[in-house]
């Protein structure tokens, strides 16, 4: 039902992304009456509008198919979000008329999200890796450690349930890196076949040793299939992947899982109601520190505010905005000044420890055509370097192999290379003589370049830093008059040392592949430029990093209520009937894309919510 038609709900959930969606589904299936508030628009009847918008977009960024329009001034947008385009030059990221986030650091927080039915995972790649056993054991200063109850062994059954629920294709054999990393069952679907590029890289790189890794100093590198929420066969009435090479931003045939599927399943239980274009504005605390209701603002399709309201009474409240919007909401909920630090925040950690996976993306040309722009955006990666003793000194990383040529790396290929060769430019660096071609020469030159393009991605772990935080802007508001998030972000030396090693390994791999490097060195004044510590030759290199689209850490879980916001069940220490879910609970960014872990934790929490008798007394 598309309205809060009931007088009373068992559960109110803010946010309809993968976390909120899965909890809504499981509790709806368990017979609970659920209300979901979603800041963005409803599930579209079909994807005509989104595909049309995408096809016509000049820059096919992750946000390109989705509302709201990317060109609007954020202060006019009722439910805005950060965009890749606001990061595309040195100025816009700090210009409030261009950037939704008010960024106060010297380094931009470089990941973006969506506020729409299905949340950010509408535009995700689909990578569904599990965290490593050691990811759960690593300890950082200031109490940053996963709770005792959350480790690979306890989470394993939930990983499996998540893989079955969203439909992950993969190979158990390839993913059990170590004995400790066991799989109770195989994936529900077989692994997606590798691409030509994967096979070439495997051929050249498999067997290399770098002297460290998940199996210690004898670790050999190996190109492995990446488990992904992408159909390798017909699954739950959705089609098999056809290699549209468009996972980000949108799969035209929904072969890639996106949470609107879960939302439809939730709706099908008959127990879940939705309020779309409904922005939660305050969590109101009642007696005994229990959440009483949530206030919200609503707006119409034209973006104009249509009214205000509050949720009917409910027993349990679940906040599933992402790791920027949830702390924003918690900090907006000051109870008219009675609670200046916001809801759930006696630890002071709400909004703090914002993390991402800073990504180093080198790109180049392979010696022979290996045919990119084919298949899913990424089908394989190298996971062997994610763990080891070195983690005491520097951040670790995983390596993603891209199938999309230079499209992601330079942002806009094959257009850039094509315009270069037609108009005599050299923005791609592949046309140093500034030649302008046509006819057969154009075909052969362009064909040769495009078919040899490739890129890698090094997703580097980031350690929590309490000063990397999300606060409320004191001066900038959104289209509903709510304060926009103010973000301060930086990279620590630990992380930068990880980036430095990533660069070194990238160079080694490129050498092994006999590939020519085209990665550009950023300008000095590029805010995403990182000056690395001196390398083996004593030189300080400069690289740029990108955001991986992972927003982590700002309401972390822990065992100590003084240093964490929620416990192992994602339940607030302060408010018994409040759960905060999503990657904001991760105490560390760990070494894998977060979505599968988000899903596993969400399913586990739904189970806890359901079975906690005090919740329903």
């Amino acid at each position: 039902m598309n309205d809060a038609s009931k007088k009373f709900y068992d559960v109110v959930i803010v946010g309809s992304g993968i976390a909120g969606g899965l909890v809504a589904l499981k509790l709806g299936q368990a017979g609970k009456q659920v209300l979901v508030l979603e800041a963005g628009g409803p599930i579209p009847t079909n994807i005509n509008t989104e595909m049309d918008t995408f096809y016509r977009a000049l820059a096919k960024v992750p946000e390109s198919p989705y509302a709201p329009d990317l060109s609007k001034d954020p202060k006019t947008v009722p439910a805005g979000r950060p965009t890749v385009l606001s990061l595309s030059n040195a100025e816009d990221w700090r210009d409030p008329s261009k950037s939704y986030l008010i960024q106060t650091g010297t380094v931009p927080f470089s990941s973006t999200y969506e506020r729409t039915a299905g949340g950010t995972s509408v535009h995700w790649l689909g990578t569904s890796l599990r965290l490593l056993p050691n990811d759960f054991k690593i300890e950082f200063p200031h109490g940053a450690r996963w709770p005792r109850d959350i480790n690979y062994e306890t989470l394993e059954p939930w990983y499996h349930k998540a893989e079955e629920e969203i439909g992950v294709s993969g190979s158990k054999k390839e993913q059990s890196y170590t004995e400790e990393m066991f799989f109770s069952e195989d994936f529900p679907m077989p692994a997606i076949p590798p691409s030509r590029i994967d096979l070439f890289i495997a051929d050249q790189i498999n067997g290399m040793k770098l002297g460290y890794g998940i199996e210690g100093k004898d670790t050999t590198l190996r190109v492995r299939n990446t488990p992904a929420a992408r159909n390798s066969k017909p699954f739950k009435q959705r089609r098999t992947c056809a290699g549209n090479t468009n996972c980000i931003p949108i799969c035209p045939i929904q072969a890639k899982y996106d949470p609107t599927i879960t939302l439809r399943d939730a709706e099908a239980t008959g127990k879940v109601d939705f309020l779309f274009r409904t922005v939660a504005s305050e969590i109101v605390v009642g007696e005994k520190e229990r959440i009483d209701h949530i206030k919200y603002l609503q707006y119409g399709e034209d973006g104009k505010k249509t009214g205000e309201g509050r949720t009917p009474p409910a027993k349990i409240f679940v906040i599933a905005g992402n790791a920027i919007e949830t702390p924003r909401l918690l900090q907006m909920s000051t109870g008219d000044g009675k609670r200046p630090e916001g809801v759930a925040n006696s630890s002071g950690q709400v909004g703090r420890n914002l993390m991402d996976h800073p990504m180093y993306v080198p790109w180049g040309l392979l010696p022979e055509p290996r045919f990119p722009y084919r298949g899913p955006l990424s089908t394989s990666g190298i996971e062997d370097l994610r763990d080891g003793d070195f983690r005491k000194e520097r951040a670790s990383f995983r390596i993603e192999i891209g199938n999309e040529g230079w499209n992601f790396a330079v942002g806009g290929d094959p257009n850039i290379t094509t315009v270069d060769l037609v108009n005599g430019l050299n923005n791609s660096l592949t046309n140093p003589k500034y030649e302008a071609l046509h006819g057969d020469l154009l075909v052969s030159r362009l064909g040769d370049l495009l078919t040899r393009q490739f890129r890698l991605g090094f997703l580097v772990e980031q350690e929590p830093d309490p000063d990397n935080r999300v606060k409320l802007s004191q001066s900038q508001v959104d289209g509903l008059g709510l304060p926009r998030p103010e973000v301060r972000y930086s990279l620590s030396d630990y992380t930068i040392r990880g980036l430095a090693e990533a660069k070194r390994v990238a160079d080694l791999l490129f050498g092994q592949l006999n590939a020519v490097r085209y990665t550009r060195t950023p300008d000095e004044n590029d805010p995403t430029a990182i000056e690395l510590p001196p390398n083996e030759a004593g030189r300080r290199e400069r690289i740029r990093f990108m955001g991986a689209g992972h927003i982590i850490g700002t309401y972390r879980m822990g065992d100590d209520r003084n240093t964490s916001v929620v416990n192992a069940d994602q339940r607030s220490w302060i408010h018994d009937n409040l759960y905060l879910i999503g990657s904001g609970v991760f105490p560390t960014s760990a070494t894998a894309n977060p979505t599968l872990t988000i899903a596993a934790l969400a399913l586990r929490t739904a189970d806890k919510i359901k079975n906690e008798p005090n919740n329903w007394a």
Partner: protein
Amino acid sequence: MTEISRRALISGATATAATAAFGAALISPTSLIAKRLPDDSVSSDQNLTNFANLSAALTGVDSSILTPNVDPFGLNAEIHRRANAANADKLQTILSKFTDGKTIEQILAEEGRDESAKFLMRSIILAWYLGAWYEPGVLKTNAYKPRTYNSTRRYSKEVLIPPKEIISPDAYTNALVWRVAQAHPMGYSNLQFGYWEKDPPPIEEFIRPLKQDDPKPAPATTDPTKGVPK
């Protein structure tokens, strides 16, 4: 019932003048087919054939792919319309020289210091290759940017020069760049699961007409007297 040649109907010749007359942005030619063809020599059948042949010479892709016999998309007419709107006189000059048998290089040489033909041709090539219309003037400005420019920012306007617009979703899905890459448009795949594990067909299959299986010789797709390079 009047006989209307295949090209006039389906390849959108009917549409061409209609669009020129009504200035409507083309979303799909189907909506324009019903509109009547005013008497307009610009969009005559012969002009469009010549334009297709010129486009084949410019792009290096066979004209039977640019204008298939049954053409649901009408791209040839649409790109011709835009080129004509950008610089009708220059387009006419180019076309008449081309049909006289001059090569692209010869035509450009004869233009001398006047670069408008050069940039118009580049607009045409990019329209076919990327499904996007780049105004010749914008190409000209960007061709002479200082070459010390060095930005790494993704999607920055300096590196990803914005076209005026994407011509249409069909123009994007039929863009030649994907053929030359022996791939498929990102966001539009007609291929089968697992195709990416194998090499693609050779590039000839993407830019030249498919060969028939039986020994019957295929009819010529271009007039050999027009000097169009193979």
